[in-house]
């Protein structure tokens, strides 16, 4: 059961990040040409593969309890970030992620930027934007793949979940040749936030020495309770949201 939840979590997280990376790559590629864009995507892919290849085996060599404590803590901090942002978006305190708007902005910036050649890259702007876009979006996925996979001692399954998600998003992107704005990205981020927070709580507590009542079955309960608490927080936050005319919400830094 843990393996199925692991694959599902990695797939969803990876799909969300791949949708965001696709928007950047499409905007740069269609505006400025594909050669340098593909080089940027390829270079970022190699960097991400090296990150997973280096960190995966290193983490699996750590004793299980220590690993669960460290990885549980990291996943929990990471998951709480996702969940916090997802709740802020769902309750109206933070703008929803809009791929069409991001695509339009990227197109405008790509059209205005000057062209410069460096080494074998004929358009440095396309290369760096594609590289940074894929690397930054992919780093979160690589982190999730490595931590989930190492904890379950099943890095290959986590990699398969990630590769299938990237493949599905890339195929959809090639088919429609525009950003995948109809993917329910904000809902998926909410689900991923719940999953990361739940796994982090479960593994972190196990690493601290706890025996969960019901063993693995407790994970399902933790997921259900985290989801219920998150939905309750969205409802509460919506009630606390001031009318736009009377008070603007405090600005929240954009990320992820």
């Amino acid at each position, binding site marked *: 059961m843990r393996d199925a939840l692991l694959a599902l979590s990695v797939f969803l997280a990876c799909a969300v990040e791949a949708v965001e990376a696709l928007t950047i790559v499409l905007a740069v590629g269609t505006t400025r040409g594909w050669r340098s864009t593909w080089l940027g995507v390829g270079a970022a892919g190699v960097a991400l593969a090296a990150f997973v290849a280096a960190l995966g085996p290193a983490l699996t060599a750590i004793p299980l309890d220590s690993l669960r404590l460290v990885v549980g803590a990291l996943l929990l901090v990471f998951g*709480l970030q996702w969940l916090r942002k997802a*709740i802020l978006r769902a309750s109206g*305190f933070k703008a929803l992620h809009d791929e069409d708007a991001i695509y339009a902005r990227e197109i405008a910036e790509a059209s205005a930027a000057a062209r410069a050649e460096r080494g074998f890259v004929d358009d440095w702007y396309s290369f760096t934007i594609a590289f940074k876009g894929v690397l930054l979006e992919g780093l979160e996925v690589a982190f999730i793949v490595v931590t989930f996979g190492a904890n379950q001692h099943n890095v290959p399954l986590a990699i398969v979940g990630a590769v299938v998600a990237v493949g599905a998003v890339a195929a959809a992107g090639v088919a429609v040749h525009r950003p995948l704005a109809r993917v329910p990205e904000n809902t998926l981020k909410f689900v991923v936030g719940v999953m990361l927070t739940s796994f982090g709580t479960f593994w972190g*507590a196990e690493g601290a*020495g706890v025996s969960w*009542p019901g063993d693995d079955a407790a994970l399902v309960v933790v997921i259900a309770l985290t989801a219920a608490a998150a939905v309750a927080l969205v409802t509460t936050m919506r009630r606390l*949201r001031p009318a736009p005319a009377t008070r603007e919400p405090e600005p929240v830094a954009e990320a992820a």
Partner: protein
Amino acid sequence: MRRLRAFGAFWYDFVVGDDWRLAVTVVAGLAGTALLVHIGHVNAWWLLPVFVLAALTVSLLAVTGWPRRR
């Protein structure tokens, strides 16, 4: 030096994010759980979820300005 600082800032933002209190609460929750289990001999499986929920609630309410607005 500037690059090193930027590198550190990137990883801080990547792991800790917008609200450092969440990270501090997670560490405190895990430390408290470990202390209760190994020193108090209490199977404190309930402690970390309580810390997590409390940290998330406080972090979110801080964005709304509550309870100052009430």
